[in-house]
């Protein structure tokens, strides 16, 4: 069975808490605050004003430039404010606050559930539709999908890889999507293949989800989806990393930055993104909701919920029976790469694939000790870096040497910190170093 070539770890996947919970919808929120920056790139520009009436699915903020994304209203009602409000990390972000009145949709949106498989649009039309619908990568990175699909001149996509790996422990939203919305997913893949003009697509799924693999293979055979293959991959974190997945599926390694995956002819999309693409292209439905897993060892209930963006973390946590007593850490995303949330009144956004609640003894980090040079971080690093060294260089602000040692290659997967027997916060410092070095590189490029 295939997997990526170097490094990696095997954290216990903890999917059992929520993997058998079918996707359910939550009652619509009475008020939502929709951030204008829910993606990587420039924040969108609001095009509504206080007092405006909006419908569900109506464009409320326009993409600013190419690497940016449209934002649509997740509910219908009145815009009550456009203001700076705290996000999940407490930072002030521009948000559009909408008070709900009923649930009236924009009438071009097809809300029927029946599958519409046929697509005769040209690649340009498909990409335009995806751009209009504000679809972004839903695995967590939130890179605008239309940018990814616009292959630069002189390069050619050869293979589309669908990321159904979901290597983050705890999370099950992609898994449930693959199980319950398999047909839509596969149709979405067909559309993506059409947009990229490739005749081969591989859906990578880790073999801790054998039923998803079997289900998708079944559907492909039964309904004759041509050129799509489901590949079971050996469970190993971070298989869902773009470069790792490409290496696992094709055996080709994307060269170091600034090379992009397209340089080896691959385009990677998340499984949930494929469903969103299907809805955007075939149903004219913009990205206003997504499946979010709420999970944790000590939660009363766990769920896979379909949520409109702007629903607060508090609502979801309450629905799961509230936070457990004592020390807790609420994470937007999974425990390996997710971000800790300190403001539960903050809205859920496009990149939120799950809410993981860590509680009790697992919360606090263990005490930091001296590095014993065991090189476990070196062995675990999937990018072939030396985390102990990079961390030390970043800690001492030796940015030039950190750059020499390829700090910008880091994908922030967290394998180094996870595996460190001295509990060193390796990634904490590497992340700072990476940001600083990337800033330095950009500054140098500007000078030239």
């Amino acid at each position: 069975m295939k997997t990526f070539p170097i490094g990696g770890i095997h954290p216990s996947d903890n999917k059992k808490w929520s993997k058998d919970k079918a996707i359910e919808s939550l009652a619509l929120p009475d008020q939502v605050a929709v951030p204008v920056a829910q993606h990587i790139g420039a924040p969108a520009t609001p095009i509504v004003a206080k007092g405006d009436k909006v419908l569900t699915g109506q464009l409320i903020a326009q993409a600013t430039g190419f690497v940016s994304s449209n934002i649509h209203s997740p509910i219908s009602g009145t815009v009550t404010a456009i203001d700076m409000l705290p996000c999940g990390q407490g930072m002030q972000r521009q948000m559009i606050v909408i008070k709900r009145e009923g649930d009236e949709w924009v009438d071009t949106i097809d809300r029927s559930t029946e599958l519409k498989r046929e697509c005769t649009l040209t690649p340009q039309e498909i990409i335009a539709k995806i751009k209009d619908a504000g679809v972004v990568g839903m695995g967590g990175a939130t890179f605008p999908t239309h940018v990814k699909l616009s292959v630069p001149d002189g390069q050619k996509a050869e293979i589309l890889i669908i990321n159904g790996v979901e290597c983050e422990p705890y999370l099950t939203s992609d898994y449930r999507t693959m199980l319950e919305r398999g047909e839509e997913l596969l149709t979405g893949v067909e559309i993506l293949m059409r947009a990229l003009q490739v005749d081969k697509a591989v859906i990578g799924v880790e073999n801790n989800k054998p039923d998803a693999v079997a289900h998708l293979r079944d559907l492909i055979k039964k309904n004759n989806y041509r050129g799509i293959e489901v590949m079971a991959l050996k469970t190993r974190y971070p298989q869902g990393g773009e470069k790792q997945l490409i290496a696992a599926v094709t055996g080709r390694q994307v060269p170091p930055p600034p090379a992009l995956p397209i340089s080896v002819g691959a385009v990677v999309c998340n499984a949930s993104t494929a469903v969103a693409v299907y809805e955007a292209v075939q149903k004219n439905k913009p990205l206003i909701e997504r499946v979010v897993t709420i999970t944790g060892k000590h939660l009363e209930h766990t769920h896979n919920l379909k949520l409109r963006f702007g629903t607060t973390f508090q609502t979801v946590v309450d629905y799961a029976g509230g936070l457990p007593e004592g020390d807790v850490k609420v994470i937007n995303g999974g425990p390996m790469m997710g971000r800790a949330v300190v403001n539960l009144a903050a809205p859920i956004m496009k990149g939120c694939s799950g809410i993981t609640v860590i509680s009790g003894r697992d919360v606090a980090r263990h005490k930091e000790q001296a590095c014993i040079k065991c090189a476990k971080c070196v062995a675990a690093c999937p990018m072939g870096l030396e985390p102990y060294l990079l961390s030390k260089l970043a800690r001492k602000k030796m940015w030039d040497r950190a750059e020499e040692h390829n700090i910008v290659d880091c994908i922030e997967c967290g394998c180094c910190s996870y595996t460190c027997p001295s509990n060193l916060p390796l990634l904490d410092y590497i992340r700072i170093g990476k940001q600083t070095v990337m800033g330095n590189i950009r500054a140098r490029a500007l000078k030239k």
Partner: protein
Amino acid sequence: MNELLLTVLTLCVLGGLLAVILYFVAQKFKVEEDPRIDEVEKMLPGANCGGCGFAGCRAMAEAMVKNDDITTLYCPVGGADAMHAMASYLGKSAPVKSPQVATMLCGGTCAKRPKINHYDGAKSCAVVNTLYVGETGCAFGCLGYGDCVSSCQFGALSVNPETGLIEVDMDKCTACGACVKACPKGLIELRKKWPKNRAIYVACRSKSRGAAVMKACKAGCIGCGKCEKVCPFGAISVENNLAYIDPEKCKLCRKCVNECPTGAIHIVNMEPLPKEPKAPAAKSPAAEPKGEVKTESTK
């Protein structure tokens, strides 16, 4: 005995030979350098802190000797005296700059600015700052993990565990500016150094609106503008919900201190004005003790 003599002799001859070779090599590869650079370097404090913008004192000395106009160069550690001495040695005009001191502009102590979550990552302000807002509700305040403390080469900064804030030892501070660069929140400012280490400043950098500031911190500037109105010298300006005292205009009259509803204006090494009923205080001209301060500070 013979062997011993032989050994000693061989070594002596060898040593002499090598010395001669070394002498000629040194002559051949001698680097001609302006001897004034050495002299200027001796006059510099030798801290190699980089506060002047150069890689070290040697680089600064080179720049001072080579540049015709040295008014843009300044060694914050040596201060005006050192600059004057070096300028007169080189026969150039010295830059004029009043002494400065690092000032930490946050007054959100643990008591005034309660912690609402517990940070558990690497103990570094830079790491906290990229992660989230910080342990308190204020997005502008001091994080207290001391990146500035470790950046200071002179031991002038320390974290006070009781308040959770940074304190500046004004006698040790050389205004090199390393801490200004180290603070990710931009809380440290180099301000004019008054005699007797007196200081007055708005200990807040929050640009949030008043209500948001009050919610997060009881010691923050809410941008009410009372200080701006009461200041007789026009030294205070309120912008983005935040008051700022211009140290060049301020005469240390301290009228603003009692006006501030949240106590965000801090004074150091000075007594506050007695709390008087508001109306007469605003009308009467400067009282006697203020006069003293003024004359002293304007000397």
